[in-house]
């Protein structure tokens, strides 16, 4: 009798504390689709013919390629936005050179983390102002602007 009781106790304690299969191995509802790109500003810049053409070109690229391909650019701002901003802030020649340089850096697989700050979106912060050849406009990682009112 005593042996039977011990046997039953051991048996049931094992069953009670046993891990169920379904808890651990339940299928995960993962979605592997690239996140949808939001907050695209498709508006055209009518300030002059050049910026109008450029923003049109950018919109065509976004609509025809970038939106279909997914959010792949590792930088913030993205290369297309960088190009438009660079031209707007400088001129077409300097803007094209800045874009060519950015495109080369984008193609580099080993981007140094010490050089780029990682933003909230997980992208590398690389502002246009850093490449305008004006030392006063360069923003360095983790350094806040001077607090002078």
């Amino acid at each position, binding site marked *: 009798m005593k042996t039977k009781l011990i046997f039953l106790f051991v048996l049931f304690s094992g069953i009670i504390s046993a891990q169920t299969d379904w808890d651990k191995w339940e299928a995960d509802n993962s979605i592997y689709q690239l996140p949808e790109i939001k907050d695209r500003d498709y508006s055209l810049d009518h300030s002059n013919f050049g910026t109008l053409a450029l923003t049109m070109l950018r919109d065509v690229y976004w609509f025809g390629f970038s939106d279909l391909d997914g959010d792949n650019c590792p930088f913030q701002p993205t290369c297309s936005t960088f190009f438009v901003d660079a031209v707007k802030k400088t001129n077409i020649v300097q803007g094209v050179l800045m874009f060519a340089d950015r495109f080369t850096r984008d193609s580099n697989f080993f981007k140094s983390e010490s050089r780029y700050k990682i933003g909230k979106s997980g992208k590398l912060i690389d502002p246009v102002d850093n490449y305008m*050849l004006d030392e006063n406009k360069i923003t360095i990682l983790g350094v806040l602007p001077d607090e002078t009112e």
Partner: protein
Amino acid sequence: MRKNPNGKITIVYLLFFVFQIISSAQTIKPPDKFFTLLNRIKFGNHLFCTKDYLRAVEEYRSCLKLKPNDTLQFKIGLAYERMKKFGIAKMYFNSFPQENIFFPEARLEFYKTVFLMKQFREFRNLYLGSTGNFKYFPEITRLNYLTYLFEDLPLPDSSNFRLWFNVPAKEEIMKFYRKKVNLPRKSLTAAGLLSALIPGLGKIYAGELGDGITAFIFNGILGFLAYDNFRAGHKTRGWIFAGLTAIFYGGNIYGSVAAAQIYNKRNKVNYEQELSKFLERENYFTPDYNFCK
């Protein structure tokens, strides 16, 4: 209808309780003794010492309306300075009345706020106008020397520089002096020329090895494609690739110059951050008033 004989008694009881509650209720207006000048100063001091500077200023200002107080006036300026409201602090200290017992300290803090605002040229001009009779002349002289460590100007002679600092901090400051002299810099021209010579070399020179190699491969492939298409008689494709090669070749030179500039700026900013931290720790070699013993 029957009259309740206890009705009157109930009403009396009710009135008694109501009036009792009203009479013993706490009035909204606190006793006047809470807002005595001394209490307000004490409360202001408490706020100041717990670094609640904004409310401390408010409290001190209320006190000053009741009675002038030199210490409170000075502490208001200090509170602004500690809140990093340097512009207001600067104006405040600059307008300090001469008859105030804290006038020399306010003058020193005025210089300090100019320094903290990184208006170094203005600081040096102000320093030139100061006299040796000023109580805190050594302090402002030290700050004047320190301005050179933040700017791209020729540094004063090291023997003069070290003269004004006391022993514990002297060596540390001289380290910053030497570091400033030997701050690593990359020439923008050299970076551009190197990249013009071999694409990507300027980037490697500026410390961007990966970008340099990528630029070299990029230009190499595009150049080869242009050459190969021309050789094969595909002129249109040849011109397209030649154009792209030219753009990326130019971009590589431009990018190398920008990379060298970023390198220099990064070193400068890191140095200034390190120096600022040290100076903050040393309270910019100015007296610590210790109002919160």
